[in-house]
């Protein structure tokens, strides 16, 4: 690297939250034009370190130098003005506002006192083209998929012409091709001498774009290396704090194929809920893991939601254990032994102000209660067991779930369903944003449960996970099941092929200029 | 230019702009206006300002827009309603004020409006004070329960009473708080003031409702209204007279809400061209133990 003058130097950063020592003397060095990987288990402190850099949190101790000068940003604005732009872990945009507004919020192009809508929309359109995103920039952002939203966030961050761009798990909701586009952009940035901090739990991605890596564990920086000088195996070992020997061979997922499946738990025929889901059919048998594949927006989530009774069916039929079923609400599905873990942890998963205990047992409550009164002892016992079993990193069952790291929140939500002993578990992106260690645990857990007879329907954007973990994979395209791949045909390429076949691109007709809804 | 003329007809379309309908007094006033109109076979445009002077002005506006022959106005406030009076006159519609008047600096009887019919709130306060002074031989520790803060009956009844008792060194007001002309509020305020001033010997309430509330409070505190504490108030509603009969309320100054007959009669005389006095003060009675029983049937 051309470290004539390191771009960013963070030293001795310490941060405590009530009851949690999030960062302890952590450090981070990034050179100009360097793409720097930041990795660590869930809860290692990555996001916290980033939020301290961008002024979203105040640090307790430590120094931050940007291009030589000591800086101390009091707010995200300050950091932005200081030349740091950030893509936060949770997509953080304003859904009601138009795509263009979301790109330019806070620095709208003006003519005199007034916003220059024409310029703003044109500029936004141009910017997004760079990412192969062709959308009506005057439409509310919320009407686009998580993927589009993520790309908008990235475009916004990049468009600041900053010296340092921070990406906290930008790829967790992108598919491979989108990831490739992103990498293209990152390389451009690199070329322009911009520094990039890149957080991801997908190791291959790190090797693909990063020059150096900083490894964190339990709030400490445990190592910093050139990406080339460290093997995946060593990397994982370091972030888990284990001996290399203990770490399983790289590249392999933790699934262990289960035995012959049992009788059919679920049959779905020609499900339709609206434009997003037109005709999906699939079935899941006891003891098997069925993968659900498709591009973003292909309707996987809608399929899951339809089965679970979260969206109303406008067509098609469901059979549970052979008997026809129609769920007007999730409660109905739960009563029939079905569980569902949404892809959107923040808005559809956690109850932020409730404790880990209450979040974990929320769905179990009726079973935990005697005539409406909760059996606290049993509750505590179950909670303790699952915290131990899934290795949830928390100060205790009474910690508010919003204070947990992204990955640990995800584990609590998994536990919410596992503690029900469901017959069928529907998981939408279950390992999204989960570190390799935890991911392996979860995958192992799933196959174990499957072997004990649990049926699993698993949505995942990670083809490897699907290929390795599923007994069968059902493929969706534009709201329709297009094919089903059996055990034998299961390879990443074939899934990809089935998913992507002639993806008909369509540009959305441009809307009236300045068409922002007031 | 003087008052708008009013043609002589056998029936009129008149407006009655009421201030509020949240106490027995107002209800009695409205009822009297409506009943009398029915009796005469007149058409009455009734509006209720729900306690807002501003709305009352716009109510009058809507009467003007409907071209009523005349407007009876029970103004909520002296000053804001002068505006309404002027608008009506400009539109050539005669106005008669009921119960409360408007600021004489802004609108004059005989010029801007025909006349004011009602009671003299200041005088009511004085009459209450006078009775209390006599009853207690000029020695009393008094709690005053004020009407709705800022309303003219509250202000005037306070002035009338307070200035009058200044003549008596032995009479002092130890606490004066608003009970909003309401029984419940009056009770609560009284309960509290009783704790701070257990030595109170007299209560002056700006209307009967609060007086009745105060009586409840006194009894709850183990005092005997009428014996340990003398209560005097204003309005003369039925419940109050009953309380006098029961020996709990000392006296109440009548503030007669039955405006109907006098109001319409005045309008007829005005149309006929008779000379109308600037002020028509109701001959308000005074109720105490001597006449309460006899007057019960005729009170509202």
């Amino acid at each position, binding site marked *: 690297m051309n470290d004539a003058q390191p771009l960013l130097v963070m030293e001795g950063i310490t941060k405590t939250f009530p009851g949690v020592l999030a960062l302890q003397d952590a450090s981070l060095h990034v050179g100009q034009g360097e793409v720097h990987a930041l990795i660590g288990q869930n809860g290692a402190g990555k996001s916290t370190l980033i939020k301290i850099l961008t002024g*979203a949190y105040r640090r307790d101790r430590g120094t931050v130098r940007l291009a030589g000068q000591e800086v101390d940003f009091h*707010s*995200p*604005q300050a950091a*932005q003005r200081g030349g740091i732009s950030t893509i*936060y872990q949770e997509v*953080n*945009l*304003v*859904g009601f*506002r138009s795509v263009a*507004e979301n790109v330019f*919020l*806070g620095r*709208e192009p003006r003519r005199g*006192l*007034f*916003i220059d809508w024409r310029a703003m929309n044109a500029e936004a359109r141009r910017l997004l083209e760079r990412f*192969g995103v*062709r*959308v009506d920039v005057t*439409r509310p952002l919320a*009407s*686009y998929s998580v993927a*589009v939203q993520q*790309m908008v966030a990235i475009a916004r961050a990049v468009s600041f012409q900053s010296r340092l761009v921070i990406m906290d798990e930008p790829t967790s909701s992108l598919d491979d091709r989108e990831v490739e586009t992103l990498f293209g952009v990152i390389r451009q940035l690199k070329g322009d001498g911009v520094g990039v901090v890149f957080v991801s739990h997908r190791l291959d991605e790190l090797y693909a774009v990063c020059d150096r890596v900083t490894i964190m564990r339990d709030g400490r920086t445990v190592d910093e290396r050139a990406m080339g000088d460290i093997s995946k195996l060593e990397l994982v070992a370091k972030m888990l704090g284990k001996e290399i020997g203990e770490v399983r061979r790289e590249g392999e997922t933790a699934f262990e194929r289960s035995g012959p499946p049992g009788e059919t738990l679920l049959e779905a025929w020609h499900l339709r809920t*609206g*434009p*997003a889901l037109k005709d999906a059919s699939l079935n899941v048998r006891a003891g098997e893991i069925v993968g659900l594949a498709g*591009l973003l*927006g*292909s309707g996987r989530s809608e399929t899951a939601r339809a089965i679970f009774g979260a969206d109303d069916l406008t067509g098609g039929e469901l059979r549970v254990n052979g008997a026809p079923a129609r769920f007007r609400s999730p409660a109905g599905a739960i009563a029939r032994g079905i569980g569902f873990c949404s892809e959107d942890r923040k808005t559809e998963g956690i109850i932020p102000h409730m404790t880990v205990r209450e979040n974990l047992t929320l769905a179990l409550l009726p079973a935990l209660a005697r005539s409406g009164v909760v059996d606290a002892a049993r509750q505590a016992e179950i909670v303790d067991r699952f915290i131990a079993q899934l290795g949830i990193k928390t100060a205790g069952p009474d910690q508010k779930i919003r204070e947990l790291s992204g990955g640990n929140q995800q584990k609590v939500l998994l536990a919410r369903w596992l503690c029900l002993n469901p017959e069928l578990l529907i998981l939408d992106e279950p390992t999204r944003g989960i570190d390799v260690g935890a991911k392996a645990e979860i995958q192992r857990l799933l196959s174990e449960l499957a072997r004990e007879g649990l049926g699993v329907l698993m949505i995942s954007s990670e083809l490897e996970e699907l290929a390795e973990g599923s007994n069968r994979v059902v493929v969706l395209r534009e*709201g329709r099941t297009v094919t089903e791949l059996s055990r034998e045909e299961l390879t990443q390429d074939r899934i990809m092929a089935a998913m992507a076949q002639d993806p008909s*691109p*369509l540009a*959305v*007709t441009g809307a009236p200029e300045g068409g*922002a809804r*007031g | 230019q003087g008052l708008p003329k009013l043609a002589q007809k056998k029936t009129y379309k008149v407006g009655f702009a009421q201030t509020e*309908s949240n106490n027995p007094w107002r209800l009695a006033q409205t009822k009297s206006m409506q009943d009398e109109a029915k009796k005469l076979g007149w058409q*009455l*445009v009734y509006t*209720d300002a729900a306690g*807002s*002077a501003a709305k009352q002005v*716009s109510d009058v*506006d*809507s*009467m*003007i*827009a*409907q*071209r009523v022959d005349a407007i009876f106005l029970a103004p909520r*406030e*002296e000053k*804001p309603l002068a505006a309404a009076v002027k608008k009506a006159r400009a539109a050539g519609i005669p106005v008669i004020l009921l119960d409360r008047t408007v600021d004489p*600096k*802004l609108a004059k009887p005989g010029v801007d409006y025909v006349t004011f019919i009602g009671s003299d709130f200041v005088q009511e306060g004085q009459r209450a004070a006078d009775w209390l002074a006599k009853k207690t031989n000029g020695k009393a520790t008094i709690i005053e329960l004020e009407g709705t*803060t*800022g309303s003219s009956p509250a202000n005037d009844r306070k002035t009338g009473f307070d200035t009058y008792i200044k003549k008596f060194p032995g009479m002092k007001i130890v606490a004066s708080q608003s009970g909003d002309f309401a029984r419940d509020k009056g009770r609560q305020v009284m309960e509290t003031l009783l704790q701070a001033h257990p030595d109170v010997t007299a209560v002056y309430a700006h209307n009967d409702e609060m007086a009745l509330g105060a009586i409840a409070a006194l009894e709850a505190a183990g005092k005997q209204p009428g014996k340990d504490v003398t209560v005097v108030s204003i309005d003369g509603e039925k419940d109050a007279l009953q309380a006098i009969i029961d020996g709990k309320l000392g006296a109440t100054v009548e503030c007669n809400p039955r405006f109907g007959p006098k109001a319409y009669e005045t309008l007829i005389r005005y149309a006929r061209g008779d000379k109308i006095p600037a002020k028509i003060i109701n001959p308000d009675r005074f109720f105490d133990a001597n006449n309460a029983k006899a007057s019960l049937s005729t009170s509202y």
Partner: protein
Amino acid sequence: MSLLNPPRELARDRRARAVSLLQRYGVLVALALLILFGALRYPGFLSAYNVFTVLGYNSMFGLIALGMTFVIMTGGIDLSVGSIAAFASVIGALLSPHGLWPALLGAVAAATLLGLVNGLLIAYARILPFITTLAMLLAARGLALLFANNQSVSVDYDHGFTALGQGNVGGVPFTAVLLGVAYVLGALLLRATPFGRHVLAVGGNEEAARLMGLNVERVKVLVYTLSGALAGLAGVILASQFGAGQPTEGLGWELTAIAAVVVGGTLLTGGLGSVGSTLVGVLLLGIIFNILNFENGRGTISLSAYWQSVIRGAFLLLVVVLQNRLTRRAAGGGS
């Protein structure tokens, strides 16, 4: 390379556009129908006199509702507007001997100050808007009574103060003109200036707005200050129109304003809304009073104040339920 945009986008699009039109103009249609009803049923209803006096009276609510619209679009609420208006009317009356402008500016400034206090407490002391402005509702009322020493304060008629509330240009009362101007500016502010967009962004997703580098606190302080200022203006009109500063006036105005804003289709949760339809909402709710008065004038029935409030409640129910049907279909699906 295509990033989704599945066909559904287009489908959603057309429906959304259609519905959002219906939604924008649904209230307008309702208003038109109500006016038509009145015009056909009551002589004098459309008379210049009635139209202008109704506008004049409702200009106060209009101004307050305008400020409330901005507050609500940030996801907040301002319960103090009624008291602040009363307070401003008192200050205006007290200053009226110095002429219209000194009184106007003085009173509005005083009200703006109270609005500023609201804003600072909400943005920096982080006390919830509901509580902050609930406290200000009490405090401003108290101040009004203190300054007025418990009585309404007569205004000075000789130095032009009453021109604002009682004057007119070619029959059209100043107050009505003022209202129109205020709403045009308001609409511009919301649609065409960064501030307006930031207001909506803060209401749409406060955390995101902050992380995206908006000065959320500043935006909040500004909207409550604006709301205070407009309430102040309404107060001055109150004093100037009715010739008195009235410390006890303005009870429940905040609810009227909030109802108008919601009837106009602005989300109480913030982030979405329009200024124009608030004005429609104000007139819709205002004209109901007028109609009830006229109904009583027909002599067939005489609705007591009690029946009137029942009817107003039922009417509000009707409008918001319809409004809500539309709004919800418009927002339909969009996550």
